[in-house]
């Protein structure tokens, strides 16, 4: 963001940089890599950078304004009060920065905030990332049993793949690859992650009825495209449709067989 000196001086005052003892030179240097920002975002960037530098006033301001929000976000993410508070508290070390660079300055998590979104939203995202990282770590710790379980399950059901089924898989993969990224995200969220329509709606900023219509539309289009691809691969239209239906029936049988095996075991 290259601005005339007068504007920089004005922003320096308006953003609270002066309040946190940020020099005009440092402020100008911070502005340079930033894109156009709303004034509210700029104030948040200044607060974050001042916290990263360890300014006590900035930290006081941050604690006063964001502590409870952090707890609320942590509790909402973990769905547990104790864990949520613990997750939120664990973030402060990263925000303050425990690692030290060669030049002696700390590496603060705040440095990565550049104000594309709100500071509150950024804190939520960082908390969510922390939570997922915990899951990853726990998954790694317990993955031995889990991997045995998964491998055993895979070994138990070596599904025979016919050339037709292979053709169907290839056609489906091709149709999925042709989809718009957002459509694929909707499908993955709905069919793979089993998220509700309203959850997907909130993820993408859409109403759940819009998501519902979109899921239906994408699914219908995919069916048509799969049949078209199978036809292009040499099957008649009727054979392609039958293959899709046959495979569907086979999948149902597989599920039933698997349940029956589990009951027997």
């Amino acid at each position, binding site marked *: 963001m290259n601005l005339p000196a007068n504007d920089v001086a004005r922003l320096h005052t308006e953003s609270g940089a002066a309040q946190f003892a940020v020099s005009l030179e440092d402020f100008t240097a911070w502005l340079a890599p930033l894109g156009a920002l709303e004034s509210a975002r700029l104030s948040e960037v200044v607060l974050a950078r001042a916290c990263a530098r360890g300014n006590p006033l900035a930290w006081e301001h941050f604690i006063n304004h964001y502590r409870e929000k952090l707890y609320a*976000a942590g*509790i*909402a*993410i973990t*769905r*547990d*009060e*104790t*864990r949520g508070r613990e997750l939120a508290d664990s973030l402060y070390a990263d925000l303050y920065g425990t690692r030290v660079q060669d030049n002696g300055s700390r590496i603060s998590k705040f440095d*990565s*905030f550049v104000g*594309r*979104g*709100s500071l509150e*939203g*950024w804190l*939520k*995202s*960082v*908390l*969510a*990332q922390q939570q*997922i990282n915990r*899951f990853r770590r726990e*998954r790694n710790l317990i993955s031995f*049993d*889990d991997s045995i*379980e*998964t491998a*055993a*399950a895979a070994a138990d059901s070596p599904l025979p793949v016919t050339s037709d089924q292979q053709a*169907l*898989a290839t056609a*489906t*993969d091709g149709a*999925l690859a042709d989809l718009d*990224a*957002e459509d*694929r*995200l909707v*499908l*993955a*969220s709905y*069919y*793979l*992650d*089993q*998220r509700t329509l309203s959850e997907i709606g909130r*993820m993408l900023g859409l109403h759940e009825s819009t998501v519902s219509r979109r899921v239906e539309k994408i699914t219908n289009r995919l*069916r048509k495209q799969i049949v078209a691809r199978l036809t292009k691969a040499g099957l008649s239209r009727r054979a392609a449709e039958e293959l*899709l239906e046959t495979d*569907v029936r086979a*999948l*149902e049988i597989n*599920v039933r067989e*698997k*349940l029956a095996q*589990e*009951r027997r*075991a």
Partner: protein
Amino acid sequence: MASFAKLLADRLTQRQKHAAATPHPDADLLTALAENRLAPKDRRPILAHLADCVDCREILSLVTNDAPVAIPAQASVSWRTLRWPLAIAASALLTFTVLHRQTPTNVISIPPQLAPQPQLEVAPTASLTVQPKPAPIHVRQKEPSFKIIPAPAVVPQSQAILSPPPPELEKQAVLSGTVAQTDSPGDRFLPQATAPPPAAPASAHSFGVRSLGLTKSKTASLSNKFWSLDSASPGTVRTSDDGGSHWSTVRVDSSTELLSLAVAGREVWIGSEHGTLFHSTDNGSHWNIIVVSDGATPLTQPITSVEIKPDGTVRIKTHSTRWITTDNGRTWLKISPR
């Protein structure tokens, strides 16, 4: 459609496994996406990454779906919700009626010689108790035409008519050309009921789960039964039957920490940290221990989420696996292992 869904889930899983690894978007970008602040050209590559990255989808979902677990439904109409609006409305009605009666206005009335005596009156004191007069219903014959005349001062200024005659009597009067009066008792207002009920536990509404079943009546209204995990005391949950005013503790199993909870009607499912599932079909009076197993190895991972679908299907999640049962936990199918 369900099987086509399985085909899609299978191919999407394969695609996810073999997708070219692209760097995860940082928190700043995810926030901007969640807040709809990204330009389309910046948005597209992130959506493409999200479509193939389950962890980033999870993060985005956590960020955008961070509402408290249970929010009391707007459809619920409880006394707690209505106590102040009702009190204000009653006061406003009383004030309006008193003022209205103080000022002579043109009303549709009957000649003075046939004017009815007011039966439902409010005492001039501050008491809100309606005092019905124990007189029988009088129905008098009268010529069918009414005249518009000033209302006779039949009521002291400090008194007011609160309740009109019952509709059936009005109807009868219209049909037969008579004027009806009634001494039928009006509503009784209970001032003590407007006192605020005791405060709910601080975390009750934030972490409780409202039962959506018809536990109290067969009406369409939501039940006031609340369930809440009790993080302070392992192996217990808290319940409230009065919309969160009072809470009682239900001990489920003190040997394990309870992590997740789902309620539908009288049916309650609770997931524990050791993979054991607790199921009650009678609102928590009795509990069955459900061992989740795919037939070979029982689940021992923490159950982080339990969900009851409208069709009765129950889905549970651990950190790395998801399970589904359609027969109340007798058999389980492990789906989409990560």
